[in-house]
């Protein structure tokens, strides 16, 4: 690899400039899109022209304004005469909310278990790792469906189930990182000073492994959105009258032939959002963890 890198400088500089310049614009676009989505989620109450449940049965399935529809309904109306744009805004809020809260649940649970495994070793570690292996080998989607089937669906349960997505990756990652850190000089030095283990983990080791965990969050986040929207799309997640991007697309499926605009915008928002997070995540990974770059090339 060293030989490859000693290729004449001008050419490699040109290549690297091209490589650095091109994606950066896309990354900016992605960040802009994500900020927009976040702003819409936060300001839904102010941005939505109508309440998302407001029906107008005289204005059912009206086409979007750009297709010759009433300019009052920018993206048209759905089968119950509800404004698609308003619903899209509230659906975005719901999906973003679940993804953010869910990410925190999974990351917290997983990281905590990882710390416990690495601290106690022995039996605790074995038990945690058995569950990690189990979760890793069972498709999460099936487990989630089974839990929703057995317990029935309600919002809190759904949030927790979706949130647990990916906990095993955090647990495994944290465990190995903490084990590594424990063996390093700084952890040993603090320990000999008699600092309490919790303080060592929270103040010294956690900040050191945080960047890797953040990268994992960016990898996990788009998948979490897909889990939530898939379940809602199947009618097994968020229940009406609440709405999420997946549910909206699922409802719009029934009007594909006559009124595609009731569902497709939700699909586009999901796609652009997961795409943006993936691209920004990749970029973030390169910035936060330069060691990964070498192994990837």
């Amino acid at each position, binding site marked *: *690899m060293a030989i*490859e890198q000693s290729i004449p400088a001008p050419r490699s500089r040109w*290549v690297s400039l091209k490589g650095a310049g091109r994606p950066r614009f896309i990354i900016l676009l992605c960040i802009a899109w994500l900020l927009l989505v976040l702003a819409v989620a936060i300001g839904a109450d102010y941005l939505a022209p109508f309440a998302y449940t407001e029906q107008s049965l005289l204005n059912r399935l009206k086409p979007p304004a750009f297709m010759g529809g009433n300019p009052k309904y920018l993206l048209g109306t759905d089968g119950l005469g509800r404004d698609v744009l308003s619903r899209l805004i509230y659906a975005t809020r719901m999906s973003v909310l679940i993804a953010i809260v869910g990410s925190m649940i999974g990351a917290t649970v997983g990281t905590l278990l990882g710390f416990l495994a690495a601290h106690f070793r022995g039996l605790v570690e074995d038990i945690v790792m*058995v*569950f990690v*292996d*189990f979760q890793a*080998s*069972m*498709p999460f*989607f*099936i*487990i989630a*469906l*089974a*839990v*929703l*089937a*057995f*317990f*029935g669906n309600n919002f809190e349960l759904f949030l927790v189930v979706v949130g647990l997505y990916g906990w095993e990756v955090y647990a495994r990652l944290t465990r190995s990182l903490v084990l590594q850190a424990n063996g390093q000089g700084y952890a040993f030095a603090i320990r000999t000073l008699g600092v309490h283990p919790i303080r060592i983990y929270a103040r010294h080791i956690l900040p050191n492994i945080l960047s890797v965990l953040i990268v994992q969050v960016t990898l996990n986040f*788009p998948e979490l959105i*897909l889990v939530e*929207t*898939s379940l809602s*799309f*199947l*009618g*097994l997640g968020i229940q009406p009258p609440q709405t999420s991007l*997946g549910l909206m*697309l*699922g409802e719009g*499926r029934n009007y*594909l*032939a006559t009124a*595609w605009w009731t*569902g*497709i915008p939700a*699909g586009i928002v*999901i*796609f652009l959002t*997961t*795409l943006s997070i*993936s*691209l920004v995540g990749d970029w973030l990974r390169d910035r936060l963890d330069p060691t990964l770059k070498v192994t*990837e*090339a």
Partner: protein
Amino acid sequence: MMRLQFILGKLLRGLLTLLLAVTFVFVVLRVSGDPVSMMLPDDTPPAIVAEYRVSLGLDKSLPEQYVRFIWSALHGDLGYSFRNDRPALTVVLERVPMTLLLGLSGFAITVVIGLLTGIAAALKRGTSIDHAAMAFSIFGHSMPNFFLAILMILLFSMTWRVLPSSGGATWWHLILPAVTLGIINAGTVARFTRSSMLEVLHQPYMRTARAKGLRLTRRVMSHAIPNAAIPVVTVLGLRLGGLIAGAVVIETVFAWPGIGLMLVNAVSQRDLPVVQTIVLLVALTMVVTNFVVDLTYGWLDPRIENRQSKEG
């Protein structure tokens, strides 16, 4: 010796996963409510309720119930479907061929597109072919499978009217769901194939092969691909194990009469015996495919076996 230890370790791990899956179903089933009250109407006389409890073994202690549950699961006795009063296992197994047909067709498309794209991208690294391949990979990774499915229906069934959008009656019905499934997974496979190929192409033996004067096709076919295959086999194997799980959404959108569609219906109707049968079936396929992948892996690259059996 090493090999036996490796196989036994993997086998033990697989059995443990299965046991956990059965336990998971048992615990969730017991925690989520009294099965008898779910099966009988509210005004059933207490005597009949008690009789049902005895006949289902619910009067026994929990550990005893647990052992009996595992015992009957081992015998394929997983209860009767609430919906049509037939053994849940029979009901589910009837759907297996359709899911396998869809899953394997999609898998074949994934393999062909994924491998070709990945290999082409690695060989033409940095060119527009590589960029296009990676864009495709990111597309497949970010695109929700249900959205792609809907777009496919919108284009091929509604706008151009060339392919049927729902059901599983003819071979024509297979095309849209299989292609959707194939494209979604191909992105990940392409990415793995590319990075695995790139790693191999840098190896000294590739330079040696070139120095020997071997042709490009020969170098790629018999030197690069076999060595690059190892991580790709794992990814593909895991995809194969996840066929049933992966088909849930696609089957539902295209109304393909397989296990995935059945699971979604069973969940919304709370047909618990069917749900638990499918969960256990999925667990079994995952464990078996993981085991086979591990064996293939060890066979493809003996170094892994040695390392793993030393570690644990």
